């Protein structure tokens, strides 16, 4: 992980690109997450200074959106859909099994840092429920615990 001073410097440079916007906080948070893979704690005050708001306000916005990460994710991110269609086809049960297999809960990362597990609410794949998405790019339909385990083994090998 980068040193605090480096994070602050990079944050300031990124934030400076957006300060001309009206309502620059959300674009800055997205850009920071894009750059670091998460929004580091050290960035909060720097962002606040850049747009002249209090760090409490940055914190309030940051914590409102679960998609803003507070810690770096694993090498891969698996998101399991928890929306109605998937739930009706057993998504909750499958999620429980996957958690047990990986030994982690939602929003956690495996001990080797290979995989982060997250819930997501509707991928628009209701016809193939239950669904999941890996690394924001690979969508998988009609999942079960075994199918997911195989996929995880494949990418973390």
């Amino acid at each position: 992980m980068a040193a605090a001073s480096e994070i602050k410097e990079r944050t300031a440079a990124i934030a400076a690109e957006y300060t001309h916007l009206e309502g620059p906080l959300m674009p800055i948070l997205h850009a920071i997450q894009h750059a670091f893979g998460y929004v580091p704690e050290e960035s909060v005050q720097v962002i606040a200074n850049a747009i002249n708001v209090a760090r409490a306000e940055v914190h309030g916005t940051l914590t409102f959106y679960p998609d803003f990460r507070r810690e770096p994710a694993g090498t891969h991110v698996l998101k399991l859909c928890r929306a109605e269609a998937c739930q009706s086809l057993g998504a909750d049960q499958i999620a429980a099994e996957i958690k047990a297999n990986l030994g982690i809960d939602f929003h956690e990362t495996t001990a080797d840092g290979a995989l982060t597990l997250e819930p997501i609410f509707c991928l628009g794949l209701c016809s193939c429920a239950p669904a999941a998405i890996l690394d924001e790019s690979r969508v998988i339909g009609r999942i079960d615990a075994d199918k997911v385990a195989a996929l995880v083994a494949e990418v973390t090998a």
Partner: protein
Amino acid sequence: MSLIREIDYGTPASTSETLVTLNVDGFDVTVPEGTSIMRASMEAGIQIPKLCATDMVEAFGSCRLCLVEIDGRNGTPSSCTTPVSPGMVVHTQTEKLKKIRRGVMELYISDHPLDCLTCAANGDCELQTQAGVVGLRSVRYNVDANHFTPQVRGESNFRYMEKDESNPYFTYDPSKCIACSRCVRACEEVQGTFALTIEGRGFESRVSAGAHESFIDSDCVSCGACVQACPTATLMEKSVVEIGIPEHSVVTTCAYCGVGCSFKAEMRGDELIRMVPFKDGKANRGHSCVKGRFAYGYASHPDRITKPMVRESIDQPWREVSWDDAYAFVADKFASIQKTHGVDSIGGITSSRCTNEETYLIQKLVRQGFGNNNVDTCARVCHSPTGYGLGQAYGTSAGTQDFDSVEHTDVMVLIGANPTEAHPVFSSRMKKRLRAGAKLIILDPRQIALVRTPHIEAQYHLPLQPGTNVAVVTALAHVIVTEGLYNEQFIRERCDWDEFQEYMEFVTDLRHSPEVVEGLSGVPAEAIRGAARLYATGGNGAIYYGLGVTEHSQGSTAVMAIANLAMLTGNIGRPGVGVNPLRGQNNVQGACDMGSFPHELPGYRHIAGEDVRNIFEEEWGVTLVKEPGLRIPNMLDAAVDGTFKGIYIEGEDILQSDPDTHHVAAGLAAMECVVVHDLFLNETANYAHVFLPGSTFLEKDGTFTNAERRINRVRKVMAPKNGFADWEVTMGIANAMGLNWTYTHPSEIMDEIARTTPSFAGVSYDHLDEVGSVQWPCNETAPLGTPIMHIDNFVRGKGKFINTEYVATDERSGPRFPLLLTTGRVLSQYNVGAQTRRTANVIWHEEDVLEIHPHDAEQRGINHGDLVSLASRAGETSLRADVTERVAPGVVYTTFHHPDTQVNVITTDFSDWATNCPEYKVTAVQVALATGRSNWQEEYDRQAEQSRRIEHDGELIHGD
């Protein structure tokens, strides 16, 4: 007496002049356009249930309890966010509404502990009240998902958060939070600090200080607005947690800064439970700061001395005596001194912390009893140049506006004042207006908070070199005149046109141009030009200034330069404009008004005037001396010379607060009878022969006059710990001298003031009780007082332009002393700290530190936190370094709150040419790494310890 319960209208008042009539539950009610249904209903006497609404903040509409039905409209809109409209028919109580409200309340209570009986808010909880209001009888939900039990089914509850007790004055208990966000909005809208937020969302929403920090680590300034806004026990004063809720309250006035906030002192018996800002207080409009709200503990501090004490010489220990013996001691000593050394050999100093009535009595004692005019006051060392400068230019020695005026200001010019630290409640009102779009110009050597703080950024910061105010302000006038931005019509009508011609000739000279002044002041010429244009053309321009203007060798000149600016631009005589000194102490305005100066009788009337003298001669039955007496520095000089031998000092610690401590000490040491009348054995008392215990503002009746000339009542809420109010003690001395005073209540003193002083002619306690407060002049033509002065004419007739030539101070940096020291205050401490150091406020400021720029620090090998020596030609002390870019290179800064540092050892005897106001704001100094405390500090401690011994039942104890 009972507990004053102010009506909460739910949403702020609308200022519209258009009226709208609607019908609420069958009653017609007429309110200003823009009023919420909730407020209109409350005005009709019908209280709509509510939780997230309170009239200190804007409507939010989140609690869903205040729903109403409106004829012809669908649904159940929230009454707090729905404005009234003509002919609207509103129903606040229907079967549908009752059912919805009960359901909403049931959900709230399902995530709230049911420990009402042992809860600190029991009896003072809006959630409890509203549950009763909606008739909640049972809660059907029994859920494991909650925020208030540490454990759920034997496992730790991840939603539960521990109580945060980090703030010394209040607690944050997240388990009782209903997420109404009233605290967050109060912090933002009222205080303007933005220290709080709601973190998370939905059921996980919780109030967070900073970024999930403890309150003490966050940006919180402990103003108390959140505590006041909280409807439950979530944010609660520790005093209420410890003692219980109050049962009666008395409205009084804060005894800290010159804002003069009104508070309800909420009591249980004679125990003060809490100070709550009073909504009807016209200075503070229901807001407070950490000092007035919480830092009253000094009143019951064990250091308070409650028995009179005397000693023959200052190397002896103190001896406790009866009050009568103390009075006799003083009267005998003063009489024998005057017999030996002449009538002019004694004098008195009035206090800016005591009431008008007490101050009036001290100058009366001096003039009537001592038979001379040797009376002065601590305003000598702060705003005496304001009195002189504004008196010369406009004809009155006071600010021109009320604080409400700021709500109409478009451009604020802030000169040498740091209101977020020194006048916090007014700074919140400024910030509110700035967030609404007003522009800001700051002249200050330091990067004070208002230069850039969340949601506020000054358009111009002119970081001038200390000592160059007159040059820069005159340069602003130069730009306004040479660029033709002045208001000719105003000047022709209101000022002397010929005088203006002379002034114009003076100010247009090239030596006052921004380009030349840049060289003296270090302020870029373009910034001076931009600031001048903005002030002259930006709409209503108001100037606010502080001691950074007055405490200079050209303090009076700077005040006149400011007065010129306002006249040039026509910014005088209406709301939103004016010249407004921010006065430091609670009653420094009043002390000046009451004739505390050696050349003036009450009401700023010169002692040489026979008519004026006659009024008092008749009232007091003596002949008054027509020559002015000695000022404080003259008294000290005379003492060193051996011609001034006795002094009565009420409520002022001149040894710590006045410049050049060595000289003050030498003066005091040379006197035969120094009488100190104070709460504590202060630093001056080390040189005293008589100590008369004082009373706090909580223990007496009287009035304070704030920076806007507002005369506010001070009301007694408890008996004086020392037995007597200060006015009674002064009367004790007077009567021991045979003056035969017979006051039985301070109201009689005010009556005497009203009888003798035209600007106070209409003031009486009955009148003040009736109308709350008045701003002087208050007389037959203005029975309700005068919020804004000089409306059609200046008090002196025509406004006077005065040429303001810049003369550099003799105090300048050189090879031996290459840096310039300037001084100031912090939020949590007050003046010499005698009060605030004896409260939990020390958690924010344990010691004075020296701010130094990284460049200057590096040159000297100084790191953050190092002990450094600070030396000037006057003396040397030591303190810790704070390496920061708040100060410019070449400038260092510190505060004067702690006697351990005693920064006035460093300051010099240079002073304002007109008024002798000391030049605190500029001292040439050198800073170096220190190996230990200075010799002077060690020596001083030894002397202080020796001097504070008290003989008690044959034993020596140490007073502190």
